[in-house]
């Protein structure tokens, strides 16, 4: 690890990155109803300021030499117990700054977008307050310099996610979805807390510098355990198999929330965790393999679900699962993949936010209907929305020169280095991505209009379309500029390390094959959903379609494995409590009561009776003494 540089100049404002949105959240959440009018602007201002500070910091960092780009700032000693201490301290390095920019810039755009999207909600201030809280927690997560502080941010984003998913809590489904997300996330959080405890026991510290510095000395078994626990945490937060079930329900939240939290930033926290802990995963071979397996399963699960859902947001959520699966898998590949995982994460954050916001814009014009079978032929009516959506669509399926082409092809390329099987599976999934995204675009913007009667589609206001345009521009040029101009590989290299891919086959062969597969998938999708009539009622479909509509039985599995046993266990415990515990307690109380009722008869009130028992006792004592003496 490189030594941390002291925070000077613009970097001394590091704490402000977090403090500004946090202050905004405090004002909005404690300020009451009167903040409804100006509160949203304050929220945008705080996040925008953080974004400006982040950009200034990036510029400052670029002036430094690569060895001096890791900057630490310690505010105060936060926890100090015996040998253990944890500081309220931040670490800004090449990895963190990528996240900071993603969070603050995309966050600002989504804040602005929400101004239009939530214009008529009478609890605007709460919404913006929660969003600010989320941004603050997420920044804390990526800026923390120890695992304990990271855990605070980790829980903070979980809280914000819960609050925002069930923001419209008058809908029972939204309230249930919030709880579901929270509870499933708890499973992952247990993994993270256990990992932190194990680190403390093993290394005596939870700071990044300390842990990574001495990680090599620990046994491989311990490192594997820590790695698997971290993977569990990542699965919970990033909706990876087997903790994927909450993400689809999380779409009950407002669309900007889906874009910011459940597509661009929070769900990628798992990827951040694994990449940040790269030292541990590099040393623990089997943990890394588990990461690849989990990632691969989720790529396919997400893609299959995304292909079958008619709900535009849930389809996008399946796509998000699948894309994060790519990142997780890339992170499992080792130093060869870390850079591409982060690269894809960044690109995905941009284009998936664009897709979600575009979907929100469509819903805005369609009376909040999410059923794609009720869309169709919207392109002429929503020119800006459809154009930006299609740009982001091209980015996600990986058509050059859009973002996804660079980041996803790199991942596929790197996975062949690891094993041809992984490579082929990842490549085929890319083809499936082409199919389901084409299906979505075709059903929404092309084909025939299948609108409900009282729907009058219209373009969204500028406050919503401008963020879309900015994101579309990012999706168009972001990948290109980062590869040929910004050179993200060398930028991240000090943090993650890098290995060059050395394969006998040249890189363009993989790129071309992937492209061909994607185009095949897209053409199939186009032929099925744009050229043919799309029925308003969903056909029964194959067994795979039916399974995918039910989230590949994720809920059913959870129900059988966890929910029902818990129900039965609690019923049995209630029965046991009533009959067993209460029976014993009440029985012993009744026994003592009855005994006392009999024994109190000996409390006659006559002093002489008591004296008689005293004499009896004295006789016994003397008898005992005499017998002891005699024996």
């Amino acid at each position, binding site marked *: 690890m490189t030594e941390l540089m002291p925070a000077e100049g613009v970097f001394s404002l590091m704490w402000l990155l977090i403090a500004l949105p946090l202050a905004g959240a405090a004002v909005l959440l404690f300020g009451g109803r009167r903040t409804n009018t100006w509160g949203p602007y304050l929220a945008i201002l705080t996040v925008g300021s953080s974004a400006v500070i982040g950009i200034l910091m990036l510029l400052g960092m670029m002036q430094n030499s690569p060895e001096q780009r890791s900057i630490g700032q310690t505010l105060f000693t936060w926890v100090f117990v015996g040998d253990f201490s944890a500081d309220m301290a931040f670490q800004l390095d090449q990895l963190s700054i990528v996240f900071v920019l993603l969070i603050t810039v995309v966050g600002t755009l989504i804040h602005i977008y929400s101004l239009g999207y939530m214009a008529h909600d009478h609890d605007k201030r709460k919404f913006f307050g929660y969003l600010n809280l989320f941004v603050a927690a997420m920044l804390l997560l990526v800026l923390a310099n120890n695992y304990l502080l990271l855990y605070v941010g980790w829980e903070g984003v979980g809280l914000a996610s819960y609050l925002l998913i069930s923001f419209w809590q008058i809908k029972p489904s939204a309230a249930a979805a919030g709880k579901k997300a929270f509870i499933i996330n708890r499973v992952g959080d247990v993994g993270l807390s256990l990992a932190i405890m194990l680190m403390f026991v093993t290394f005596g510290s939870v700071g990044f510098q300390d842990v990574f510095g001495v990680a090599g000395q620990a046994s491989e078994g311990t490192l594997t355990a820590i790695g698997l626990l971290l993977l569990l945490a990542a699965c919970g937060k990033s909706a990876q198999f087997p903790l994927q079930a909450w993400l689809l329900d999380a779409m009950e939240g407002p669309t900007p929330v889906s874009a910011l939290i459940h597509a661009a930033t929070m769900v990628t926290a798992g990827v951040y965790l694994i990449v940040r802990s790269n030292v541990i995963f590099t040393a623990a071979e089997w943990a890394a393999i588990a990461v690849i397996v989990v990632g691969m399963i989720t790529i396919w699960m997400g893609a299959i679900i995304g292909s079958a859902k008619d709900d535009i947001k849930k389809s996008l959520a399946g796509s998000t699962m699948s894309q994060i699966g790519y990142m997780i898998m890339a992170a499992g590949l080792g130093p060869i993949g870390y850079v591409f995982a982060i690269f894809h994460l960044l690109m995905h954050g941009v284009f998936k936010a664009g897709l979600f916001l575009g979907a929100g814009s469509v819903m805005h014009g369609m009376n909040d209907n999410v059923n794609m079978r009720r869309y169709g032929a919207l392109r002429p009516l929503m020119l800006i929305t459809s154009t930006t959506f299609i740009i982001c669509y091209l980015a996600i399926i990986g058509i050059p020169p859009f973002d996804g082409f660079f980041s996803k092809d790199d991942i596929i390329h790197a996975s062949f280095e690891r094993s041809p099987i992984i490579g082929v599976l990842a490549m085929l999934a890319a083809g499936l991505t082409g199919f389901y995204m084409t299906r979505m675009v075709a059903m929404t913007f092309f084909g025939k209009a299948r609108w409900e009667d009282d729907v009058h589609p219209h373009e969204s206001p500028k406050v919503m379309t401008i963020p879309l345009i900015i994101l579309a521009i990012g999706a168009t040029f972001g990948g290109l500029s980062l590869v040929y101009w910004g050179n993200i590989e060398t930028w991240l290299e000090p943090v993650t390390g890098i290995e060059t891919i050395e394969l006998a086959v040249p890189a363009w062969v993989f790129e071309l094959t992937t492209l061909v597969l994607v185009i095949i998938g897209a053409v199939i999708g186009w032929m099925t959903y744009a050229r043919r009539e799309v029925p308003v009622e969903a056909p029964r479909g194959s067994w795979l379609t039916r399974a995918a509509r039910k989230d590949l039985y994720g809920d059913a599995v959870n129900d059988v494995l966890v929910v029902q046993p818990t129900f039965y266990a609690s019923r049995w415990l209630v029965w046991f409590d009533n009959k067993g515990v209460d029976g014993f307690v009440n029985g012993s109380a009744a026994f003592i009561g009855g005994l006392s009722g009999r024994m*109190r*008869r000996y*409390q*006659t*009130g*006559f*002093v*002489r009776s008591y*004296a*008689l028992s005293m*004499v009896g006792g004295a006789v016994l004592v003397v008898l005992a003494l005499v017998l002891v003496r005699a024996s």
Partner: protein
Amino acid sequence: MNPSNYVILSAVLFSIGAVGVLVRRNAIVVFMSVELMLNAANLAFVAFARMNGNLDGQVVAFFVMVVAAAEVVVGLAIIVTIFRTRRSASIDEPNLLKF
């Protein structure tokens, strides 16, 4: 004659005192029985002092007398107080503290 005769006499007197405490109902007589038991104990102390050849037993007997005197004073005052309110010196009368 063995000095243990004194101790045996003490035991006899002590038992008679115990019977008096248990059988009599007049509080004053009960008190006298208690005094008899204390005196029996004193006799044993005195006899033991003689047998062991040191005066500690007599000193203890002396303290017993002091304590007995104090006890009698307070006890009789209590009897008088109870008699004043209940017009009776029977120790079976105040038996309200029961089940």
